[in-house]
């Protein structure tokens, strides 16, 4: 277990500062108008704002359009398999708590094939940011219903409309034991997106952020109203949550919501007439898996001593 095995990296004179260019990877290959572009921009802005060393930052993703994001950020990236980003991120963080870990998942990744990991990662409450880029559809595999597709919305697999009510990821996360940070934002409001990412990054624990996100190809109509009519948006504001004063002029509806109020958060998370954005719940006092027990690393000599002692107990 190497808390900070980077002691040697910071040689003399390492007082680097990082600019946007330090985080920019190759040009993204998402469709024009895809919400992933805005998320990428906000993420890169966050890295600059927080001055995260690129070599000590890891983006972990699963499979799907959004899971390509790590390729476009110049940090370390782990583009793994469908639905399993969270276990990988858990392993990274367990072995290397010194790394900043971001998990990028789509709605299929997080709420369908990897749903079990999502619940348990919430409960582990390890210090990482988990982004659910929710476009309400399977995009990469070309238009299949996802758990978050609204009821009645057609796709290639349910052509006359999705059969069931959509899964509400906020409710599910808020219902899970030991949840410590649950927020929702929208990629078409960059200031809110950035502020939410920053709050998530600064929160110590598992920061779950659902980002509402257009798929221009398959679910554009679902987000049109939210994008065009500020009236359907309702901001949750609080000093302990996200407050973007500049948005007050555009978005008239806001609720003062204390993120420590879990019952309130659960009520607000229910589907309603308006799209609610902001921090629903935040409690830093929840147990964090990686903090519960930590021994310092032992040197080889110490380990051998311990092993010899242990062998002695089995000696014949």
């Amino acid at each position, binding site marked *: *277990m*190497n808390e900070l*095995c*980077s*002691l*040697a*990296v910071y040689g003399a004179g390492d007082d680097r500062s990082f600019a946007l260019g330090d985080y920019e*990877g190759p040009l993204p290959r998402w469709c024009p108008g895809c919400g992933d572009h805005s998320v990428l921009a906000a993420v890169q802005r966050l890295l600059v704002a927080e001055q995260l*060393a*690129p*070599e*000590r930052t*890891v*983006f*972990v993703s699963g499979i799907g359009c959004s899971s390509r994001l*790590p*390729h476009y950020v*110049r*940090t*370390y*990236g*782990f*583009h*793994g*398999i469908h639905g*399993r980003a*969270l*276990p*990988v*991120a*858990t*392993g*990274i*963080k*367990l*072995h*290397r708590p*010194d*790394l900043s870990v971001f998990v990028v998942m789509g709605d299929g990744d997080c709420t369908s094939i990897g749903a*079990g*990991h999502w*619940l*348990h990662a919430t409960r582990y409450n390890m210090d990482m940011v988990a982004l659910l880029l929710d476009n309400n559809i399977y995009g990469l595999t070309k238009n299949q219903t996802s758990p978050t597709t609204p009821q009645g919305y057609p796709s290639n697999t349910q052509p006359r409309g999705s059969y069931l009510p959509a899964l509400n990821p906020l409710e599910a996360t808020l219902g899970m034991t030991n949840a410590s940070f649950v927020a929702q934002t929208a990629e078409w409001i960059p200031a809110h997106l950035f502020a939410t990412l920053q709050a998530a990054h600064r929160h110590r624990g598992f920061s779950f952020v659902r980002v509402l996100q257009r798929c221009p190809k398959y679910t554009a109509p679902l987000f049109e109203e939210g994008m065009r009519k500020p009236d359907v948006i309702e901001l949750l504001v609080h000093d302990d949550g996200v407050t973007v004063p500049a948005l007050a002029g555009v978005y008239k509806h806001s609720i003062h919501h204390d993120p420590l109020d879990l019952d309130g958060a659960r009520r607000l998370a229910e589907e309603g007439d308006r799209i609610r954005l902001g921090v629903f719940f935040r409690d830093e006092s929840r147990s964090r898996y990686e903090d519960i*027990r930590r*021994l*310092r*690393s*032992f040197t*080889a*000599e110490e*380990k*051998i001593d*311990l*092993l*010899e002692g*242990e*062998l002695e107990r*089995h*000696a*014949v």
Partner: protein
Amino acid sequence: MATGVDVLTEPPSRPEIRTIRTSEHVLEIVSDSGEGAQKCGQIFGNVSARMGNGVWTVEIIPAEIEPPPRSPAGASGNRVRIGKGPVTNWGDETELVVAFNEQALLGRHRLGALASHATVLIENLWATHADPGIRGQWSEALAEMEGSGYRIVEVPMEERCLTVVENARRGKNMFVLGLLAWIYDRDRDLCRDQIEGAFRKKSEEVAAANVRLFEEGYDWAAENLDFRIDVETSQAREPMVVMNGNDAIAFGAVAAGMELAAMYPITPATSVSHRLGEMFERFGGVLHQAEDEIAAAGVAIGASYAGKVAFTITSGPGLALKTEFLGLSIMAEIPLVVVDVQRGGPSTGLPTKVEQSDLLAAIFGQPGDAPHVVIAPATIEECFHVMVTARRIAEAFRAVVLVLSDANLATGMQPFRRPAIDPAWLAESPDQSPVPEGMQPYQWDPRTGLSARIMPGQPGGMHTLTGLAHDEASHVVYDSSTHQRSSTMRSRKMAVLQRALQPPEVNGPPEGKLLLVGWGSTKGAIEEAVSRARSEGLSVSSIHLRFLSPLEPGLRGIFDRFGKVMTVEINYSDEPDDPYITEENRRRGQMAFLLRAQTLVDVDCWTRVPGEPLRPRLILDAIRGRMRKELMP
């Protein structure tokens, strides 16, 4: 086994005591689950090992935690084989049984576990029990065993234990240990030390009560039994340790410097994690009990990607669930150690019983071309050491190394040479130095396919690892030449490893009529059978493979010097003379399948799936049978 038995008569100063002198003996203690027969067997095994006997202990485990009491399927306990020299396997039939009730005994009888000359010490409570149903069961059971040849001695276990403790159910096991200590003339101080060690965790009073129970049993035996068994010891060897194979794997993993294991509970692998959890608490390290088998693989891979090589532990059903992640680990060349403690399959199969049916799944189970390393320890000692080798190869080759253990090694206990821990075994601290300019994450050496690993924390090494087809820079590339090249590189690593391997040693003459080939936990039984066969004048040798993929070199050359090659495995194969079976449709043992494909030699097999380790005598019979049939004129 019957060799070396002779009966002596002592002077008739008291009830005549026969002392049976023998070079080895097999005994077992069976009870209902929860009556502590296993602890009794373990202490007996430990004491015997400390006195200089070779020991092999096997747990007798029912599938349920608390099966119905007094049922044949619920027999739980320990089987101990002790001998003068090293004991390499569990042996043949049991010669002395201590049974806490007749149903447990009946369960063992029905499995054919007992020798016809076996002596049975049995609780005398049931024959005269107040419940007529129980009395009925007793007489039915004895009737069923009639004619078996057992010598049955009734022992008032409950009655004597009640003179010491109030609840005899919790005390019989140490009373029985006392009986055995007298019969086998075990060192009483050593026994007391072990009892105190085992019970001190509970309280000093509990420990003291158990010592008194032990003395009670010893005294009762001394006053009432008319036989003793003297197994020779060979003292003064090098320092030894005793543990089971799962403990050895846990130990070996720590000695290999691994600091993270992820698992999900599954029999019979779970106890590795018990030991690891306990050691990591003190040695630094993480035992992560994941939400499922898949997550366990993912956590181990994530950890390995970012630091020292990590590992995951499972059994067959869990291995099936991990396959997609193994494919990722192979594709992205993330070093990983996977331990599969095999059990009977398919599906949930025989969770507590031994089998070697995962071999082909272990090698070929991942969709896509997924070259990786599969190795199998053959002894409990090797369970310890294999982890060092597995970790090293995984790291050096950026490879997945799958270690195939099995339930026989997992639960068997055996003394072995105390490992002299070498600092070179420990995993190196991750290299966090800056990555040289221009170095790529998959900078394959075209000759070997090897490339240096870059890990998070290293400045200048930023890249995104991917399970998609990729080039040297880890860029996603779908063109045909890149996929061909990268597939070649991943495969070449296996060839390079294979060229560094040495041919297996032949046990016995390097040429002859029959060569047996084994792998995994069957080594002791096969070699014992070969040695007995050779003492009968049969021309038999054996080899035992550890590297199963890539296979050890030189096999073809070895095979060519024998008239016939036959694998001995604990997995299913059709018998050649079964109905419908032809040369063309015969399903062979898994190693036989592999060897035929790799060597083009007509390798035969003799396999069984009895849910228990192979007995040397059965292998001997198979050797005789095949030689008579095919090799004798």
